């Protein structure tokens, strides 16, 4: 039997060496290791008929040979497969300088992308996104915001009226700012209020590169017990740092909006020159016109008259509000020189925001 095993090993390896394809290897495998008629399988199957001494020895040797043969067959198979793949790969040489197959993706509009970005920042500190209609009443847009009839502040916001009237008989108008949403929200719920709102606003104004009759604002409002001007500053500084970068500084100066008092304007240190007004200490910065500061938003403490108008008690609650002109902030940040591009749906413009 020992001789048989040596012979099987010699014959099997010789036949394996002569095999040049996977089917040939399979045939050799069947001849020696095949379950039914394989020569080695036959010996292993017949071990039981041998005397005990032989059974143990030959069993060990036969199993050892089977392991060796299995490994040799597997190795030969792999080398043949690899060779086949290699020859296939050799034919897969392509001109990689040709363009890739296009996966279309639509672009995001820079105004809406900015609104989403800003909404996200305020969302993180508890401001819920709300919205109101674009056709508004005179009362929501002006009177309740402390801009009574014949108030000169109405001149700041020349108005489009539509050929429809509201219940009070006054002509309906296209909202001149997002602030009427403040009025709607406060009339719909008791304090605390913590909301932002974004949307289109309309001004009766001729359009040119820097003026648009239709543009977007983001408005914020917080009303609660003991809210202060310091809270307003902290909230807006957080916004500026999140939006323009952590090193951004802010400054506040007095300004006027009839629905806030005290009213303020916030400037942020220029994100390009870092507030120095010069790039690399030399070239005047054209983002901030070399001033080091950019105008960002208007804000203030909610005017007590507005709180009274919506049925809140200014002795019990205070609030702050702010408004951001989205087009202006985008124009500054992305150096867009013509405001008309935003509503023009020109793909040559939109494709720059993929």
């Amino acid at each position, binding site marked *: 039997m020992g001789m048989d095993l040596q012979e099987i090993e010699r014959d099997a390896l010789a036949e394996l060496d002569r095999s040049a394809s996977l089917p040939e290897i399979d045939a050799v495998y069947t001849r020696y290791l095949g379950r039914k008629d394989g020569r080695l399988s036959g010996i292993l199957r017949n071990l039981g008929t041998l005397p005990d001494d032989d059974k143990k020895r030959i069993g060990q040797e036969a199993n050892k040979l089977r392991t060796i043969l299995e490994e040799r067959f597997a190795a030969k198979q792999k080398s043949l497969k690899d060779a086949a793949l290699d020859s296939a790969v050799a034919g897969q040489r392509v001109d990689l300088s040709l363009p890739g197959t296009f996966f279309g993706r639509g672009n995001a509009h820079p105004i809406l992308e900015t609104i989403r970005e800003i909404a996200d920042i305020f969302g993180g500190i508890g401001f819920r996104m709300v919205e109101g209609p674009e056709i508004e009443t005179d009362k929501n847009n002006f009177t309740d915001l402390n801009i009574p009839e014949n108030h000169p502040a109405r001149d700041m916001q020349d108005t489009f009226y539509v050929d429809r009237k509201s219940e009070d008989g006054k002509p309906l108008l296209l909202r001149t700012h997002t602030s009427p949403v403040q009025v709607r929200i406060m009339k719909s719920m008791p304090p605390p209020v913590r909301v932002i709102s974004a949307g289109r606003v309309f001004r009766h104004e001729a359009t040119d590169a820097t003026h648009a009759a239709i543009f977007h604002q983001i408005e914020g409002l917080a009303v609660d017990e003991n809210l*202060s001007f310091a809270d307003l*500053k902290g909230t807006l500084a957080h916004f500026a740092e999140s939006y323009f970068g952590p090193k951004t500084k802010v400054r506040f100066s007095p300004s006027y909006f009839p629905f806030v008092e005290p009213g303020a304007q916030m400037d942020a240190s220029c994100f390009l020159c870092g507030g120095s007004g010069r790039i690399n200490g030399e070239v005047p910065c054209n983002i901030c016109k070399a001033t080091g500061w950019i105008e960002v938003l208007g804000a203030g403490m909610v005017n007590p008259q507005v709180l009274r108008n919506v049925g809140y008690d200014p002795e019990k609650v205070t609030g702050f509000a702010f408004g951001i002109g989205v087009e202006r902030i985008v124009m500054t940040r992305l150096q867009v020189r013509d405001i008309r591009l935003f509503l023009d749906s020109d793909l040559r413009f939109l494709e720059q925001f993929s």
Partner: protein
Amino acid sequence: MKISLNWLKELVDLPWPADALPEKLASLGFPVESVEKKGVSATGVIAVKILAVDKHPNADRLRIAKVTDGAGERSIVCGAPNIEPGQTVPLATPGAKLPGGIEITVSKIRGVESGGMLCSERELGLSDEHAGILMLPEGTKLGSNVADALGGSDTIFDVEVTPNRPDILSHVGLARELAALAKTKLTLPDDALSAAKEASFDIEISEPALCARYLGRVLAGVTVAPSPDWLVKRLTACGIRAINNVVDVTNYVQLEWGHPLHAFDIAKLKGSAIRVRKAKAGEKFLALDEKTYALNETDLVIGDKESVVALAGIMGGQNSGVTNATTDILLESAVFDRAAVRQTSRRLGLKSESSFRFEKGTDTDTAERAWKRAAKLISDLSGARATGSKDAFPSAPKPMTIELRREALSTLLGMAIPDAAAQDVLERLQFSPQPSTAGWSCTVPPHRKDVVEEADLVEEVIRLVGYNSVPSTLSRFRVAKMDSTYRAAPTARLVQTMRGYGVSEALSSSLVPSEWPAKFSVPEKDIIKLANPISQEESALRPTLAINLLRAIQRNLNHQRDAVALFEIGKTFWGEEEAKFGFVLCGKAVHKTWRTAEKDICVFYLKGLLEALGRDTQAAFTIEPGASAPFLHPHQSFTIQYRGRPAGWAGMLNPRLAAELDLGGNCAIAEIDLAVFTQPLDRKVASLPKHAFVERDIAVVVDVATPWEKIRGEAETAGGALLHGVHPFDVFSGGSVAAGQKSVAFRIRLQDPAKTLSESEINAAVDRIKASLQKNCGAQLR
């Protein structure tokens, strides 16, 4: 508001250099829009007299002027055409520095030495005038500094004034603020004039509610003449054209005190009284702008015995204006109701510097100060005698007092202000604070009509203490509970889906040309129009997003684009305001590349996008063939159904409309209610099948009019629970298929989640489906 630094300096001691002023003004709430330097900003320029002018030996266009500065003579080469002997002109001497950084040296010009340069206005920084050399007034001291001779330089600040602070539309007003900030002295303009007698004319106020005060002063013996140089310069610097000494003084005092004034020629007034009254219906008025205005009973006017002589607070009349022949004038200073002025000014479309100021608000105190100052200046400049005055002042307003509570101050600001500091600021701003138990009782000065309650005083305090001294705190917040009425629609999933399929997010105008809604069959009653459009192009609110999206396609095609895919989420106004989602696809769906063939947008791309949208956004709408909209293709359009009602439409654009708009044949368009996409998601996860599916192909020939929908429906019914998909892969007519018939091949997928299907179960299902198609669709099997 243009503010002259020289003028300001006469009124207040400024401890800061000029270039520090913009920051100080901004800290007070008056940002400076621009700074302009006026006057001679050159150094080393002196006055010289031209003694002789000779030809230049080497140049035809140049001449050589011999000049003297009173002490010595020099030769100057000059190219200007206007120099003659005897003139006094400015000479930039060697070492002089001119605006723009030019430094003058002794140099040879075409071989002749020139000892300096004679200067034009532009070269001195005075104006853009460069046609010739500037002529100095005769008698200018030779050798003297030209900057001094021309009144020196000035800096003009263009200050932005918010509409709540009309008092700042004046040099006195701004000086008052700066004095409060700098804690320096305010010097008010000189208005000392000998007391006037009671005038011999009468002022009658018929509308005391609309005219709080009317001051009139007769100045007799006026000589109307050009104003002196200093006055002209001040007006010019502030952007006002000089006319004559009387008109110029009223303008000057308006810039100084901020209060509008008017001068009548008394000789032209009929009768011995003027009356502040409402106009009569049909009354006509010829204004100083030489236009005639038709008045009505709402207009406030000044009338004499016969007619209207001025539109109160807006403009005087031609019939009573001051001319060069005027000798006696009536100087008016009044306080008119701002709403009345505004209404009339708006109605007549007549605006003036005076109406602008009255609309913003004036006060009875400043009216008197301005009136006195103007009378003083007119007397000084025109030799007039102030002969009589009348002050119609029905009831002097009571000063308003407001309590500022210490606690309100610190609560609203979020910081404690020491009592002494608050008191000091309020005093500096002339609020005369009287300490009270809770804080201070403040009296609002007459020029501060904007201060009406406590919060206004809080702003006053912090304005001077400085906004930037308030700390910055990110407060703890209570989250507000709110209902869904105003909650913003969640559109992120919709936006991401559309972008993922290659459609770009667009925004288009809310306004459309008035003729467009008709193209979309919008009934006239449902078109919401602007009552006051700027142009016909933008005169109606968009009834559908489609209009401006189609116009966007037109523009993009004009820019040589061959594929346009845009979507928009926005408000439409078809009778009412609604939130919509719309999109357009036009041109190529797939471009020809080195490995793909090109494909055009067609109705199946549109349908595929709608199906993908439904799947990705989980919006449970159905796409049903046929839409009644006439702007869509009659055979290639859909109605979007949602919860049992139509919620939108989609389709290829009607070929006639496409041709009219020059959009080509493959333009798809859709608009769906936004609400379809913003419902909360309701999803359940199905357990995963453990057993493999099998697929079989079936091919049938049916009547060409049999819709796929019918075949699919039959297959699904017959296939029962085992059927998990029916997908058509080949549809054709002609060839071997009989006329009026079509061949439809489709693949079915069969699966039983509980076990592996046996061959007999599979065959039974296929046979059921085939039999059903034969019976119910008249199908022949292939």
